[in-house]
């Protein structure tokens, strides 16, 4: 199983010899569950509280969501920075690049189009309606 030592299937649990820390696997899942639960609860609290500056709520929610996705990747999908999962990380990085381009590009272009759209004045609209 030389290849297992140097390459790891995505989502696979590292074999005993590879793991530096000897945490039991069930404990890793439990840590992930607890952290994800805390982050989710914080998200719901932020969205409903009036204690925080309203302008920062959206940003805070985005940061919490990205943090929780990271927690899921590390604790549930066992993604590490080790040499054995380089391929998985590279594929993920490419996927994230495409996601970033699609989402920010769409929002940027469409909001720009919206801003530049000419809103017809009332007279013009009346003219359209009359003819």
């Amino acid at each position, binding site marked *: 199983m030389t290849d297992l030592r140097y*390459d790891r299937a995505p*989502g696979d*649990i590292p074999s005993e010899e590879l793991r530096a820390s000897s945490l039991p696997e069930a404990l890793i*899942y439990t840590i992930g*569950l607890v952290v994800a639960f805390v982050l989710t609860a914080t998200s719901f609290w932020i969205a409903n509280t009036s204690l925080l500056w309203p302008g920062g709520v959206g940003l805070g929610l985005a940061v919490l969501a990205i943090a929780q996705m990271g927690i*899921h990747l590390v604790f549930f999908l066992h993604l590490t920075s080790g040499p054995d999962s380089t391929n998985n990380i590279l594929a993920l990085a490419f996927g994230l690049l495409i996601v970033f381009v*699609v989402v920010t590009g769409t*929002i940027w272009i469409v909001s720009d189009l919206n801003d530049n759209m000419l809103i017809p004045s009332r007279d013009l609209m009346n003219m359209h309606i009359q003819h």
Partner: protein
Amino acid sequence: MNIAVAIDTVPQDALPGASEAGTASKRIVVTYGFWIFLLSDIVMFAALFASYAVLVHATAGGPTGARLFNQTTVAIETACLLLSSYSCGLMSLAVNSRNRLGTYLGALITFALGAAFLTLELREFADMIARGATPQRSAFLSAFFTLVGCHGLHVTLGLIWLVVMMIQVTVMGFVTSVQHRLLCFSLFWHALDIVWVGVFTVVYLMGVSP
């Protein structure tokens, strides 16, 4: 004995690297291919998220998200999916140790929580449609039903897949191919939970906050 000692003292770096070790095992090839499928699925969801984000204010005089969404339902749905992801992880541990009872138990809990999530979501949809908030009402609602409905469809497919896998475990036992499929299933299920994190943040929480 001397040879054994010599092998033990060889540093790990002296072993061939990934590219030199020859073809990867089937377990790695299969799940890596599935990993790439999942990433392309996430790219598709990114497109749906983007279209939702640009259409969220296009309500055409119809109901807005703040009027339609019930946060308690969403919180319960989120808890269901998170716990089912956890039980799915414990199931994959049972699969790795060839524990039949643990596998069935994990699958049962995962299925029950997934089904509870789906029931809540369908009730929410039915409630919205009964109040006139159909997908035809506005561009916002079209984008909402496409995004959330697509995630719900994935959960439905995951539940069917889980049932099929349990039948295969019963009939075929823990043979290598079944283990590969179970590993792919747990990847799929965890990825769905990651997408749901995006859904509840972008759609439900950002939609209701002032």
